[in-house]
């Protein structure tokens, strides 16, 4: 690569010097071209991602009317609020439980799809990925209707077995369960697809060798599949952890954080405080609490992705 680049420069220099102006040469230089090609990207990231991120730290240090600097005042205020600690606990329970179940279900389903003859896999995979394709706001509306306490399907079905009626979204424990269920429904297909791709990349010889050594199916998963898929499992899980932790749509539409803020997570609480109660600095402080966990996950993802890049 480097050789060609040098050659390109030399050719351009030799012929161009006579024919074209120096401005033309500058425009033909690789670094200039590269700069202009990446300029829109750099501007976008700087103005609409980096700047708001820093601005949010600034906002978090102001008082409600945004005229006085209060330092860590918003944070100490939040630390004293019981609701805030509930949000922290809620977000962690929600994200960890949902990610574990998504990963497990995704792994199991990927195995089943991998197990069946290759001819039919496409069809099954196509149907199983549908939850991931529907915009979450739309599918959550369908769940909201399925959870409806009096007229709808779940309680009707349960009543046939003499159970219920369950107050799916009105009772705090059931509401948490419902939110996690919807999130698992939405996110498991993503894991399934990633694992399926990873499963297909495990060389068959390894399984043959394991079978010759007398390994049963469990040993094959434990000693062959899992080590081979370790990297993709790590990346997918961490990625999903970020997305789930920062989730907004599902909780907002299902419960809006209710009953009594008992299902509120960071994103919905920040929305409630910052936009609905128009205390922008406090809302910014709430969402900034997501940064540490997101940063840790991001660092690990980056490490794994780079490792993966070097392997390939």
């Amino acid at each position, binding site marked *: 690569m480097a050789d060609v680049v040098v050659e390109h420069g030399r050719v351009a220099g030799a012929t161009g010097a006579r024919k074209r102006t120096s401005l033309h040469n500058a425009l033909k230089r690789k670094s200039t071209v590269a700069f202009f090609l990446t300029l829109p990207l750099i501007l976008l990231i700087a103005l609409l991602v980096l*700047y708001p991120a820093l601005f949010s730290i600034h906002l978090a240090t102001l008082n409600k009317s945004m005229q006085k600097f209060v330092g860590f005042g918003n944070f100490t205020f939040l630390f004293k609020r019981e609701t805030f600690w509930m949000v922290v606990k809620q977000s962690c329970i929600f994200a960890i439980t949902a990610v574990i179940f998504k990963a497990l279900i995704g792994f199991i389903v990927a195995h089943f799809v991998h197990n069946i003859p290759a001819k039919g896999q496409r069809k099954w995979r196509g149907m199983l990925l549908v939850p991931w394709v529907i915009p979450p706001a739309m599918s959550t509306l369908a769940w909201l209707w399925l959870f409806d306490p009096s007229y709808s399907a779940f309680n009707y079905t349960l009543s046939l077995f003499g159970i219920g009626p369950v107050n799916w979204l009105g009772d705090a424990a059931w509401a948490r369960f419902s939110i996690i269920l919807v999130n698992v429904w939405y996110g498991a297909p993503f894991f399934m697809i990633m694992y399926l791709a990873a499963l297909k990349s495990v060389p068959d010889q390894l399984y043959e060798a394991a079978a010759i050594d007398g390994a049963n199916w469990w040993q094959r998963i434990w000693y062959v599949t899992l080590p081979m898929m370790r990297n993709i499992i790590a990346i997918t899980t961490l990625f999903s952890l970020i997305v789930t932790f920062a989730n907004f749509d599902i909780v907002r539409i299902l419960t809006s954080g209710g009953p009594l803020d008992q299902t509120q997570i960071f994103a919905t609480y920040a929305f409630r405080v910052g936009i609905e109660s128009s205390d922008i600095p406090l809302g910014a402080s709430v969402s900034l609490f997501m940064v540490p966990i997101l940063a840790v996950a991001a660092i690990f993802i980056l490490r794994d992705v780079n490792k993966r890049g070097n392997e390939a």
Partner: protein
Amino acid sequence: MSTIAIDKAGPRRKVKYGSMSRDRAWALRWSYFFLVVFVIFSLTPPIYMLITSLKSSAEISAATNPWWVFHPTLSNYVELLTSNQFLRFFWNSAMVSIVVVIVTMLISVPAAFALARMKFWGSATLATGVFLTYLIPDSLLFIPLFKMFALIQDLTGITLLNRWYVLLFVYPTLTVPFCTWIMIGYFASIPKELDEAAIIDGASWLQTLTRIFIPVALPGLIAATIFAFTVSWAQFLYPLVFTTSIDQLVLPVGITTTLIKGDVFNWGQIMTGALLGAAPPLIIYAFLMDYYIAGLTAGATKG
């Protein structure tokens, strides 16, 4: 060795060796059984959407089996598709998504080309930065962005809040990093001999990009386009925060805020709206599933 070969392809062949292929056949039956269970789980909400959308309000509130339509009617569809408000949401969504897709491609394809092929000062850092930006969720930035747009309005008089076109500025922050990232991967996988040959033949960098890289990486380009479209179409938080007037809303926010009037849920119409809102991504997915999946799995790989 031969037993192993049969072990792997067992189920569709004649049973030759007792226990092993019988185990395989049972494993296969269980696989199908659980796949059916999971498919039912996956498809229940969309199918229930369809069922409800075909019912009249009277049937929905009647105490009949909710899983079946006794008197199918298209009145919900007719009502929504003739309502100016709903068409307005649809139009806003389509407009925003299409413009965002175009902007995204115009930004990310040249940038990915530069990052994949033209090693320059800081290119590795920038590529890492792009990936990190992709990991920043919308729920972290909506409050500072909201305040930023309000300040811009105060300082320059340009109204951005409560206008649909504000979304044209914020959606690319969600789509561009991912599209750039996967395009870097696709471009990096193109053999260097191709662009070397082009450069020896006297092609400029831009010609190399438009004549060689874009045609060769077309599958990647399609995957990125699909991704950008579905993300823009599905985005819920930003439009909820930045737009409030009914004529400025996009579909997801429009359906959740206008069809739910107080405590009265007109479920027939809500489900119809949700189904129509889910239709464009579903149709794209039905026709371009392989590109969709390629884009999905490419995000976690490099090169």
